[in-house]
């Protein structure tokens, strides 16, 4: 019987672009968040000033302090959304009954929310054609309008920076796939080890006949997008852990390591931290430490990455997060679906505008690493409720594949993207016949 020719997995040129999210070089001097807002405003204002002439060329651009009543002009600044229901630490000390209900709602919006625009010279309350529900604190915009006698700024039109420029996708002839999986939650009640094993076996080519194996050999990379482990809350609530429980804390991580080792033995894997993983809380989350992965980290295909994560594969630009930025937008604003939130972050050219207001963030002094300078080809967000995808097209021929990746432990769904044409499909794994 002839020896079957071994199938070779395709490869793609990989470039990790996470340097901007590294905290290693930063030195904390006790600074607060004013600096990050200053750099954000400065950077975005330069961008917006360049766009104003093609938007409304005949109007003067002025600062907030330079506003004159009744005069039509343009102002540029950072938005602040005043929200009645936004939780405030001061409520704990307030003696009077407030509007905050005892049960925390998932979304803090209220019809009375209003927007304020702020620059270095001052702030002004906004009214008019700018819906508070669509915006959040931290977004930098240009506004056309005029000051009213009441001291507000009546907005006539809003200018956002819009999608950043994108390098065109080079035409490739081969189909190469990247698999995204998120919310594995190893160690939780919803984790099904068989389901994860099925995914691993499929990707590594241990499942199916030749056709399926050919499909698997076209997968060049797996990206694990956050919340890979779930440590029981009773171990992390501040109480001392009994000695018999101490070995149990690390069990989910050990189990994840064993499974990941199977994957990394076969193809390159990127793993990002999520909000439930043993990594720092504030963004950008630093890569999970190699000591957590005693098995998988011995392979050079193992890559622990930051959250947000930016990389390019065969010059296709990828950018994504484990979900905290979009989840926070969901709490403070309204949109028809998660993809619309994602689209907004690209139009605002900022991954996480609510940081540091309601999203934990490192107090940078001289940069804002969440500014999106060039448009990615694939923009992904993990740990979402369901799988959604759309191809967003920009005014300068930008094409972005927006992907909302569902939690694997709940849905059994992983996402596959074709590098050649940005087409997106799912890999669905189930271990019960009645699914």
């Amino acid at each position, binding site marked *: 019987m002839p020896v079957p020719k071994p199938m070779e997995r395709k490869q793609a040129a990989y470039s990790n672009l996470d340097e901007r999210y590294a905290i290693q070089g930063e030195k904390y001097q006790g*600074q607060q968040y004013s600096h990050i807002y200053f750099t954000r405003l400065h950077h975005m204002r330069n961008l917006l000033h360049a766009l104003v002439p093609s938007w409304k060329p005949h109007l003067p651009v002025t600062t907030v302090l330079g506003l004159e009543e009744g005069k039509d002009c343009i102002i540029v600044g950072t938005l602040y959304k005043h929200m009645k229901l936004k939780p405030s630490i001061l409520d704990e000390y307030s003696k009077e009954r407030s509007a905050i209900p005892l049960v925390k709602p998932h979304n803090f919006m209220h019809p009375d929310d209003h927007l304020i625009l702020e620059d270095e*010279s001052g702030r002004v309350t906004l009214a008019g054609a700018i819906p508070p529900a669509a915006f959040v604190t931290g977004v930098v915009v240009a506004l056309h309008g005029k000051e009213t006698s009441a001291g507000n700024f009546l907005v006539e039109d809003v200018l956002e920076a819009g999608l950043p420029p994108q390098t065109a996708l080079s035409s490739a002839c081969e189909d190469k796939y990247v698999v995204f999986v998120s919310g594995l939650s190893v160690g939780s009640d919803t984790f099904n080890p068989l389901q994860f094993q099925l995914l691993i076996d499929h990707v590594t080519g241990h499942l199916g006949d030749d056709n399926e194996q050919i499909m698997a050999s076209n997968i060049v990379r797996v990206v694990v997008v956050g919340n890979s482990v779930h440590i029981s809350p009773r171990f992390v609530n501040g109480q001392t852990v009994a000695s018999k429980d101490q070995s149990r804390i690390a069990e989910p991580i050990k189990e994840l390591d064993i499974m990941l080792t199977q994957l990394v033995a076969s193809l390159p894997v990127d793993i990002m931290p999520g909000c439930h993983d043993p990594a720092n809380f504030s963004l950008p989350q630093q890569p999970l430490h190699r000591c957590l992965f005693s098995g998988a980290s011995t392979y050079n295909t193992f890559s622990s990455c930051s959250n947000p994560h930016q990389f390019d594969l065969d010059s296709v630009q990828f950018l994504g997060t484990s979900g905290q930025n979009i989840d926070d937008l969901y709490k403070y604003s309204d949109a028809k679906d998660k993809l619309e939130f994602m689209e907004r972050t690209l139009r605002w050219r900022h991954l996480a505008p609510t940081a540091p207001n309601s999203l934990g963030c490192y107090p940078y002094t001289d940069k804002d690493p969440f500014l999106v300078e060039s448009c990615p080809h694939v923009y992904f967000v993990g740990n979402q409720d369901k799988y959604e995808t759309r191809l967003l097209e920009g005014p300068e021929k930008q094409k972005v594949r927006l992907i909302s990746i569902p939690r694997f432990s709940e849905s059994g769904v992983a996402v596959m993207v074709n590098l050649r044409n940005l087409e997106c499909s799912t890999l669905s794994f189930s271990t019960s016949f009645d699914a």
Partner: protein
Amino acid sequence: MASSGVKDFYRQKKKGGVTKPSSSSKKKTQQYTGGASVGASDNAQTSALVSHGSWDLKDDFGDQEEQLRQFDMDMKFGPCVGVTRLQRWERASAMGLQPPAHLRDLLLHASSAKNRSSDSPSVECLWEGKV
């Protein structure tokens, strides 16, 4: 900690600092002496001060420190608290805001000076240790 430090700069100063608005409009943009335009006193108050003649102008820091304080207070270069003056200068320069070049030399000499007498300008911003 706050006692002697606060006395230092609540002292009235005639030179620099607050600029007199040249028109009666409340919201006038500042001229760059480097001063903060917000909180500018109005005409009547300033002329009253001037009419009383000179007062204690001899502060215990020199002209160099004064220039650096103007640099700290200038909103164009962003917030000053939480970064050293040199870091703020470098940041402003990297952003293309063109901070005065002589201040950088001043700051480099100040940080390398072995004698930290009360005359030599400080590396930290004027609010350091006071807020």
